[in-house]
């Protein structure tokens, strides 16, 4: 069914936005870790996006996207009050959230911070002490710091260029934190594949359970097509129904990253065509 955009907030101008969507039937069921599949318009592609937040009373869900290709670029052109043609969810298994004896560290990178936010909030609601570690290339690309501060006693930041917080990688902060506190109960990481792989490498010597949320290519999102298959512990799993969250120590990140590149060339063709037609419309004054 179509879903109306109630609120649009630009997080990084022209690149990342947050949409609050009217979807009472999805909001009623959505839990941290779930995602939706949406199709912007007739002829559009089905793409998965993680649910960044829900408001059951208001009947809304929040999604955050990074403009990467045609579908997200098209999404970015939509305004408040306009509709997304198809919104389907909530999909995927809920995050396994239970009371831990020690703090949980939630690591987020880039747009993944938005998805991580929902999981961190879930841990907070379950009574866990949540430490957030977020990273971006530069200060202006950092998301959800204020939102996380509302319930995370500690929000630790790193930027590649040192424009804000620690200069370097999130894994450096993570490692220091793991060394300093042996009671850490779990680590959750959501972000680009190399970041999640690095987080899993960092936590391994500490033996802390590490959950990663995988962003594999999906078509239906309901376990029918197998496009999202990932190797976990040597077995083929479907990210849409067996995940999207898995034990970071068991995921074959190299294969995941290779599979994510499958349609790169075609995605580029589609995006270029869109940009041409879109730019034309805007410049014909």
């Amino acid at each position, binding site marked *: 069914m179509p879903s109306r955009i109630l609120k649009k907030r630009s997080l990084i101008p022209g690149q990342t936005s947050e949409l609050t969507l009217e979807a009472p*039937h999805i909001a009623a069921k959505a839990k941290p870790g779930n995602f939706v599949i949406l199709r912007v318009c007739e002829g559009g592609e089905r793409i998965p996006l993680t649910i960044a937040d829900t408001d059951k009373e208001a009947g809304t869900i929040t999604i955050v996207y990074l403009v990467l290709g045609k579908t997200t670029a098209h999404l970015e052109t939509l305004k408040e009050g306009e509709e997304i043609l198809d919104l*389907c969810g909530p999909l995927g298994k809920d995050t396994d959230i239970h009371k831990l004896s020690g703090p949980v560290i939630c690591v987020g990178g880039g747009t993944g911070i938005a998805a991580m936010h929902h999981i961190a909030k879930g841990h907070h609601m379950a009574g866990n002490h949540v430490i957030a570690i977020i990273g971006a290339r530069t200060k202006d690309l950092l998301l959800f710091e204020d939102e996380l501060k509302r319930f995370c006693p500690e929000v630790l930041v790193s930027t590649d260029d040192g424009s804000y917080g620690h200069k370097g990688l999130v894994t450096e902060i993570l490692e220091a934190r793991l060394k300093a506190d042996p009671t850490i109960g779990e680590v959750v990481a959501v972000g680009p594949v190399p970041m999640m792989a690095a987080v899993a490498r960092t936590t391994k010597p500490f033996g802390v359970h590490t959950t990663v949320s995988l962003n594999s290519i999906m078509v239906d999102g309901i376990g029918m097509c197998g496009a999202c298959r990932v190797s976990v512990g040597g077995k083929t799993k479907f990210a849409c129904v067996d995940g999207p969250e898995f034990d970071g120590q068991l995921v074959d990140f190299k*294969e995941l990253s290779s599979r994510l590149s499958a349609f790169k060339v075609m995605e580029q063709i589609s995006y270029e065509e869109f940009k041409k037609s879109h730019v034309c419309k805007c410049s014909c004054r």
Partner: protein
Amino acid sequence: MSANAPADNKKVKTPRTPMPEQPAAERVKNFQEVTLGYTPEMAAIEASRCIQCKKPLCRKGCPVEIDIPGFIKQIVAGDLHEAYRVLRETNSLPAVCGRVCPQETQCEGSCILGKKGEPVAIGRLERFVADTYMASDACEQLTGDHACSLEREGLKVACIGAGPSSLTVAGYLSAQGIKVHVYEALHELGGVLVYGIPEFRLPKAIVRKEIDAMRAQGVEFHTNWVGGKTITVQDLLDQGFNAVFIGVGAGLPKFLRVPGENLIGVFSANEYLTRVNLGRAYNFPEHDTPAYTGKNVAVFGAGNVAMDAARTAKRLGAERVMIVYRRTEKEMPARLEELHHAKDEGIELMCLNAPVELVGDEKGWLKSLTVQKMMLGEPDESGRCSPIACDGEFCEIPCDMAIIAVGTGSNPLIGQSTPGLELNKWGYIVINEETGETSIPNVFAGGDIVTGAATVISAMGAGRRAAKEIARRLIG
């Protein structure tokens, strides 16, 4: 002379009327329907071949027990309206069944004329009648009447999934005046009829018309509602539905469990066909969903889905498409007609070959396939000769795309979200064979989620059985 013996031997000798079709060289360049349908003259000639057996074996061979001699008789009499009515009595999707049913093993396989010569082309006649009526008003098609207000006060039934089994339940119950709501996970209605079966075998417009007819009859359809996620069986019972029918189909595609299966270029048939059919990837980049086709394509499996995938790859520009199969052509489970169409279109059959490894390049893209030669042994429990590997006989074939069409397993979404629903060891729903009812009272199931991957018509048969039982309970 038995009751089923032909009354007139001349009729037996009349040859079966061939089906006009697009020439192979033309059709491999487009996605339009391959077979073109009978003209009224052809239908009349073919219908007259039916000898109107007193005890029609064809009807017993049909999972939904269409009164086959009954509708054929009306074609001969020139009353197509009545022929359509007879078809509709037991079949909610005749235009679909006339195209995709495995008639050679069902109605036509049982036709007495087939003993000495060629059986009556029952499927083609069914299609002819249904297509003729497609042109008329949807509501009238179903009710014979423009007024569609059939609702019985207070009775409502929910169907999860909008494939052939659920559509049959919806068609049957709404014709009895029961309000039916159908919840579909995808954005289009029809299930496998739209995401799985290609346009060239079953045009989507045909499926849409059948669905429109049900809508005109009062069925309400809800797309993007995932059974077990957006809505659960318990939610529906809580909302006051008198019965729930689960027709979610078979889910998870099976893989071969050979090395290299997750290389780029290796697809499940479901992914490939969904991209092309549901996402209209043949029209990329006008439509956004991409699907590429390699030069040398290997398809594993030899059922209808494998034929569909192979013929789709050919149409998308593959130079060489091979069906790689462990047994021989004789054991292939695909419909004969589809196998013939595939061969005519230049699909190669590589029989007695089993894939043992998919080999990739340094970037993770598929570049070749290693197969092992097989031979046939004794028949196994399926009744077919079992394939046995020939020691040490391997062969490497260049191949940059592979499609795996070896079946599906059960989808876990409904099972996981429905406490108390009995599943068998493979995750399929256990039902009472007589009624279609599951372990939860007034919750029914049918189709591939009960039997594992089967045919459209068997799913419809299961839907019909459940619908009859639901109607009996609700209206007596």
